[in-house]
């Protein structure tokens, strides 16, 4: 069991979401940075994780378990001693894990072997706050943990660094792209946007350009919207929709951020630069990243005395 000792207002249990309910008006939801979930799975195995926005998170483990902290960089300490991110660590019963975000990136994940065993609702264990499924975690919450198959301890060969500072978001044209004049599409690609302060699991606002309006059609029939869609508000300001977006909407959408780049959009902290570029479907398919690679965890012996002093359970470092 994991006990939450302190958490920010946007700390929730998340998994890959609950797909299959679009006809019922429920978006799949799921982790804001799905690549971080792939990385968590590579290190500790499949299962739900704790997702935390930039705010300190402190938990106490009520059993020995394998833990990994991923995504937006944070200072992670166990009983005051630093713990590397993006690596699997076997921590003892009673360990207190503190995660303090550094301000780079937006979403940090705490994953445990076996996964967070929150109750399954409509096929998922994560919170979907807008839909009223689950809720944000609070100090005092106790979360059950599932059982895990043993696996060698490892760290990520390449972690989240490449998707944390903003950058280019590749866009696929969609059903409404053609409603925007060529000039607006060209200007969209030429505009150096920054991630606005406004943003959450429903989506993020891009600032730095506006007036991206469609031609002629003032009132659009409400139609399906998906995570990744770049939606223009009435003022023609772009929002990139997140996993907790509504299923339908009446604002026009100029395109859809490809799945490979959506984690980069969601992990952009306020102020991070973002550019948009249209790509072909072939380019989008080719951009799908391979599963995260891991490498065996070999400890620097200089780290060991301190860690052993904190009663970390036996046989945990440098397992075969």
């Amino acid at each position, binding site marked *: 069991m994991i006990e939450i000792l302190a958490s920010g207002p946007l700390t929730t249990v998340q998994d890959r979401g609950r797909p299959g309910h679009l006809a019922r008006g429920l978006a799949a939801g799921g982790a804001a940075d799905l690549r971080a979930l792939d990385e968590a799975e590579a290190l500790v195995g499949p299962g739900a994780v704790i997702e935390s926005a930039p705010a300190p998170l402190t938990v106490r483990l009520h059993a020995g378990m394998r833990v990994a902290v991923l995504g937006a960089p944070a200072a992670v300490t166990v009983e005051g001693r630093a713990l590397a991110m993006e690596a699997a660590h076997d921590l003892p019963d009673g360990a207190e894990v503190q995660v303090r975000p550094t301000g780079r990136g937006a979403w940090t994940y705490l994953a445990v072997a076996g996964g967070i065993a929150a109750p399954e609702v409509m096929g998922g264990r994560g919170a979907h706050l807008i839909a009223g499924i689950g809720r944000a975690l609070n100090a005092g919450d106790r979360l059950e943990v599932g059982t895990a198959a043993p696996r060698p301890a490892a760290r990520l060969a390449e972690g989240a660094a490449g998707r944390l500072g903003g950058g280019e978001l590749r866009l696929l044209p969609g*059903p409404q792209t053609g409603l925007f004049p060529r000039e607006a599409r060209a200007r969209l690609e030429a505009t150096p946007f920054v991630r606005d302060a406004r943003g959450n699991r429903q989506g993020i606002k891009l600032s730095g350009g506006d007036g991206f309006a469609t031609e002629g059609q003032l009132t659009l029939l409400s139609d399906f919207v998906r995570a990744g869609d770049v939606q223009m508000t009435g003022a023609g300001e772009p929002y990139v929709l997140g996993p907790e977006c509504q299923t339908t909407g009446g604002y026009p959408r100029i395109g859809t951020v490809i799945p490979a780049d959506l984690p980069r959009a969601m992990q952009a902290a306020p102020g991070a630069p973002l550019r948009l570029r249209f790509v072909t479907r072939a380019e989008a*398919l080719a951009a799908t990243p391979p599963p995260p690679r891991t490498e065996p965890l070999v400890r620097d012996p200089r780290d060991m005395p301190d860690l052993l002093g904190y009663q970390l359970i036996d046989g945990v470092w440098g397992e075969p």
Partner: protein
Amino acid sequence: MGFPRIDPLGLDALLVRFSDRLEDRANRACVAFRAALEDAPPGGVAETAPSLGSVLVRLSDPAAAEAVEAALRERLAARDWGGGDPPPRRLWRLPCAIGGADGPQLGEVARAAGLDERAAADALAAAPMRVLALGFAPGMPYLGILPPEWDLPRQTGLTPEVEPGALVLAVRQMVLFGTRAPTGWRQVARTGFRPFDLDREAPVALAAGDEVRLWAMPPDEVDARAAEDARRLGGAEVEAVG
């Protein structure tokens, strides 16, 4: 733009559009076409869903898009999806208090429709409506299509908050809110039925294509029927049709 048409929607979905305007025939086509896809899903399809004027087809593998699109074109050509008998559905009678404190804007809506308040309440209770689509929030129905006299624009300002169960009207449709929410539509009635209830056997009870009637009764009766309903359906009567 010719309809129906198929466009990619992101990497993992296709969107089949029957219209870009609210049209009875196009919406019926969405429901019928989607039901046929659910009955016999083409290979490579993970999920389908209807909206007011389109059907979303989510792919199990983005690389299958071309094959699925070809299968969808074949299905589209097979019949006139907007005509003929609709697929099996249910008829819901939702206990409702129309007007008064439960429909504070019925007067405005009635005037716009050229009716007095009593006649407007009777007309809304008699109006045959369908669930055109579920969306915006989980289980939230768009009901219609109401006759042309109900083609009211949205309010210029927002009503800061309506109660759960509020039925609000605009643009020849009604929407039923499940939670407290701001709205630009005008509230004409209130029901004890909740579109989304995780404690119910089926959290989302309505489906696109279902028929809906407002069943007018006094407010205390609406509340009593909902309170006594072990099915958690707000005292609604439900029967299978077709």
